[in-house]
């Protein structure tokens, strides 16, 4: 579907939803639910309990604020992901305010013993914290690579970049992720962004 078709279709759906058309809403819902849930699970580091809460809150926010969605600025899926990302960030900040800060990790986190629900929980929280702290472009390329399972060439084509540029970006993103995973409170240097 080209850009104009996508915009026209989403404008029609948006108008129908604002007029109370349940079928239009369900069309959008069915098309976007799986993708949104995958994305939120990713952002929550695999923690299903937090992800379910955020998925629910995202859809409720979307139906309440449908009037603010503008198809010309981006797709409905992208808008949903933006809403979800903000909810994940806020959710994480609330939790960080309650729990003690993460201890700094030395060495490769892979070597860390991942067994036990408490450790899984902390691991998921670290992932969430690292993804929240990553610059948007780094998070986007990691998502494209590891969640959407796109190849470097496919990402380059979609982003209108060269494969070399994407490879370089992936390298920087992964390094930044490692650093933030070890110490979520550290600030990335300018050249690491």
């Amino acid at each position, binding site marked *: 579907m080209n850009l104009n078709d996508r915009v026209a279709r989403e404008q029609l759906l948006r108008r129908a939803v604002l007029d109370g058309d349940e079928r239009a809403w369900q069309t959008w819902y069915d098309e976007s639910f799986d993708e949104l849930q*995958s994305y939120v699970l990713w952002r929550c580091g695999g923690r299903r309990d937090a992800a379910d809460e955020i998925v629910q809150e995202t859809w409720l926010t979307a139906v309440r604020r449908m009037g603010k969605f503008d198809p010309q600025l981006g797709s409905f899926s992208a808008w949903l992901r933006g809403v979800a990302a903000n909810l994940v960030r806020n959710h994480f900040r609330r939790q960080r305010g309650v729990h003690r800060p993460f201890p700094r990790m030395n060495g490769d986190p892979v070597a860390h013993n991942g067994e036990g629900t408490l450790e899984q929980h902390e691991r998921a929280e670290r992932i969430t914290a690292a993804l929240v702290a990553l610059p948007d472009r780094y998070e986007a390329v990691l998502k494209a690579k590891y*969640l959407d399972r796109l190849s470097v060439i496919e990402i380059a084509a979609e982003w209108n970049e060269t494969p070399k540029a994407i490879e370089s970006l992936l390298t920087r993103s992964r390094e930044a992720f490692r650093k933030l995973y070890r110490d979520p409170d550290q600030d990335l240097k300018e050249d690491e962004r």
Partner: protein
Amino acid sequence: MNDDEFSEPDFVVQTLGNAMPDHGGPLRAVVLARTVRILRRRHVVQRCTFAAALAGCYLAGALSVQLWNRVSHPAAGNLVEQNPVIGSPGAPNNASPIVPVVTPQPGAIHERPLETADVERTRFEALRHAGDLQLERNGDLQAAVRFYKRALDIASKEELAVSVETDNWLLMSLKEARLQEAHHAREGG
């Protein structure tokens, strides 16, 4: 560099792992139900707001009409007691300085629908009606006399005849005076 290097086991791959959606879970149905409820509630509120706006416009219009009627046609109670300016030739002989208050008679002007828009009037009737309005609504005797005189100027023989059922005291007086003038004119001439 090729893409294969990124497919090797990697900290990031292991850490981020697979985030698979829960296709068959209850979350999907629960969230759909909640969002549809919000959609329905908003639709009902929209309709009620629209209906309230329509009702408000209707009331505003009705109020405007009422205010307009009050301003342009102030209520006339009983006829004002005032000295009639009937020094004119058409004045009745027994005119007293004070005009007696006329109480509504059955079939009198008050009960006749004065503002029936769909009634076709002859010119005589239109002038007569105007005189009625001046007398009944505005209490303006001079204006009423002017309209009645113009009506009598163009009245037919039947219309000149006094009618106890339909003519008010002023019109009757003017008609009688007009008839006396005509009678004197015939005898004198």
